[in-house]
């Protein structure tokens, strides 16, 4: 007998985006309010896990054709590059820079290199959690 998951699949399609945008919000707001790359990354992966639960691994892989090991590597490289970049300017390892800019639409905002580092964290967290879940899920 084939089960029909229409309700959960329909709800997921909406809830996925809510969780995903919430995770992006938490990630971006991390420097000023609770949140940051780690929690943001975990929430993003939980949104993806929700997709996996409602559909199945192969469907999700078709929708999101991401190699999560590459994602982990990219995140690590990004974090390392951000940390190492100041050394080329004669500053110590891990010096961050920030300044305030007037951006179109958004108004006066600060841009901070810590954000790049945090993106690295975000990518690693998403990559690793999804790698773990995917490998365990696929295992016979």
């Amino acid at each position, binding site marked *: 007998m084939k089960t029909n998951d229409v309700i959960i699949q329909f709800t997921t399609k909406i809830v996925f985006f809510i969780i995903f945008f919430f995770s992006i919000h938490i990630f971006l707001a991390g*420097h*000023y309010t609770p949140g*940051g790359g780690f929690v943001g990354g975990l929430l993003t992966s939980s949104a993806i896990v929700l997709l996996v639960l409602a559909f199945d691994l192969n469907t999700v892989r078709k929708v999101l054709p991401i190699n999560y090991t590459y994602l*982990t590597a990219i995140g690590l490289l990004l*974090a390392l590059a951000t940390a190492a970049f100041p050394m080329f300017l004669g500053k110590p390892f*891990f010096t961050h820079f920030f300044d305030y800019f007037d951006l179109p639409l958004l108004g006066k905002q600060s841009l901070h290199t810590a954000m790049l580092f945090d993106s690295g964290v975000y990518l*690693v967290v998403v990559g690793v959690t999804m790698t773990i879940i995917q490998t365990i899920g696929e295992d016979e």
Partner: protein
Amino acid sequence: MLQVLYIFIPMLAAIFVPLLYKSIKNIHTGWFVLAVPATLAIIYASYIGKVADGKVFLQELPWIPSLDISIVSYLDGLSLLFSLLITGIGSLVVLYSIFYLDKHKEKLHNFYVYLLLFMTAMLGVVQSDHLISLYFFWELTSISSFLLIGYWYSRDASRFGALKSMMITVGGGLMMLGGFILLYIMGGTYSIRELIVMAPNLVQHPLFTWSLVLILLGAFTKSAQFPFYIWLPDAMEAPTPVSAYLHSATMVKAGIYLVARFTPIFAVSELWVWLVTGVGILTLFWGSFFAVKQTDLKGILAFSTVSQLGLIMSLLGASALAFHGNGATDTIKYAAFAAIFHLINHATFKGSLFMIAGIVDHETGTRDIRKLGGLMSIMPLSFTVAAIGSLSMAGLPPFNGFLSKEMFLTAMLALQNFEFFGFDTWGALFPIIAWIASIFTFVYSFYFVFRTFTGKYKPEKLPHKPHEAPIGMLISPMILAALVVTIFFIPNLVGDTFVKPAVQAIQPFLYDSPKDIDIHVAAWHGEITPELVMTFGIVLLGVLLFVALPKWQGIYQKFPRALTLNNAYDKIMLGLDVGLNRVSRLYMTGSMRHYLLYMFSSIAAIVIGSLFVKNAFTVSFQDTSPIRPYEIILVVVLVIGTAITILAKSRLTAIIGLGAVGYTVALFFVIFNAPDLALTQLVIETISVALFLLAFYHLPKLGKREERMRFQLNRAIVSIAVGVMVTLLALSAHSQKLIPTISKYYEETVYSKAGGGNIVNVILVDYRGFDTLFEITVLGIAGMAILAMIKLRMNRKEKSHENK
């Protein structure tokens, strides 16, 4: 610089030996090697005249200047004598080995490399004035001797003998190193000359006795004294040139050299005198007694070497008495002279005897004395050399052994006249033991030569048809035998050139120059001396015992095997092996639970112990915040969750209990104002509970019985102790804060300097981003590890296919 470099010439020459061996096939490699000791012997011979006049030569090669370690070559009478023995007998042995070892069948390059290495080591030992370099060369002799004994490494007995000699001599060497270090602590210098000068001050030092005993252990193990002699008979598995060189003339005399060299430092001690003399005389008797039991030619010679080394050792012990009171004017001063004189004589006759044993082995195919006999007419030259050597060993005129044996008896007789240290009562024992040992020496000397060369010829028992050895093989033993006879006729020439400078090195306080030593060796003193009477007794009883040998040789079989020292050695080695194995198996159970128990109980014991020993446990509730109802509620939930986890019967309940604990902790973070932590804790807890459930689901069906964790008292005690430890630690850490927290700085600069508002996040990515960088690396590694563990299970799958 040259004098120090002479030591290293053999070692440097050893580099070229394999090249010569591989490239020049038709000339025996030994011929090239022969040049090295021969040249060195000539070089050292050029020092003889000046050293005999009392000059010394000193040269220093800095090695590790910052640690005050250098290689010092110090040539005085004693070290020159040994250097000449090493290079002189070394040349003869190399010459002999050219004819003994076949250039087609043997790995000659190995042999000569080891031999040259040994030569450097030995020269270094006798010339080093520096304690550390002396030890360095000392261990090099042990190692090169190990390699030489195990030269025929495919034989079990060779490997056993090599290992045994290594264990014993290196063990002793380590003791000696300890003694050296203690000497350095006492004297503040590594130089033996400087230590000798300050010897009177060293006696009072509490470490003096320790250093004395440790250094003597080194000397006794190397020189095969009782009870460490057991390695020497087993070392006879080495090729005969090696036995002749290492185990009669040079290496086994390293301990003798050490005792002689340190006599000026330690002679003031009564313990030294008694240990050296007593062990020496015991070894003399023991070795001569058991030499008669041996059936192997080299075995007889090995025990004979042990015995003769004991003789020299006891004489050196007696020579130490000359440092006390009237000793110098007494006949006791003969002791040092006799020791050195006999050392030279022993090197000559024992070297030749070993070479003869090798010749007999080489030409007949056996060394078993029961199969030999009647070789006199077949090998007349060998017999002549053997007879000269044996009669000298037995102490008969006209051979040099007679002279040194007379002086030995003189010194032993003089012991009882010595008034200190209880020698006036116990001293009388020494000449008696010496006399009995000399009788046995006489017996085994005759046994060696007459059982081999006279009696019935038994060709059917011999593997080869015997014939006289090639003349090249006989040259070396003949030269040595010629020396044996020559020294008898010119003892005073030898005495003046070699012995007296060495005696002056042993007793520097007594003589200013070697010329002051007024000892004159004579074969016949013009009157009937007590020594001469004793010698007559030795000959008489020796002949009687030798003739009656078949009648009493049976007593050796009565000696129980279980009481022998070899048995003790085997038992100790086996016991160490088995015992240590058992001990480690006792606690290395392989069970993770046991190891965790050890770890936790030791952590708890150490922390609680030091809390109370250091009086560090204090509790104060001054800094604590008021307790609110939320916290009480949460603690209750937490405790219930923990109790469920521990006491649950089903694993599922335990997992859920654990989840409850995790979420409660998240709630704690909420009420203690840590929103970032609360968020992360919630998500992570969810994921880990999911992973636990996954693991639970995959538990194997077989043997999966749901049962409550069994109660075990020791585990409960350890867990409670660890809990108590952590609680006490936390309480006292909270009660005594030494420095204020640094978090004020973060609060002040988070906006102005770091451009952020969330302190936690700013710390994570900015102030302490380094930690975060490696934490995400850890995360990445964990992810890759899980991937690898699950995806790369090829092996197990292949195996399971095999099982099907």
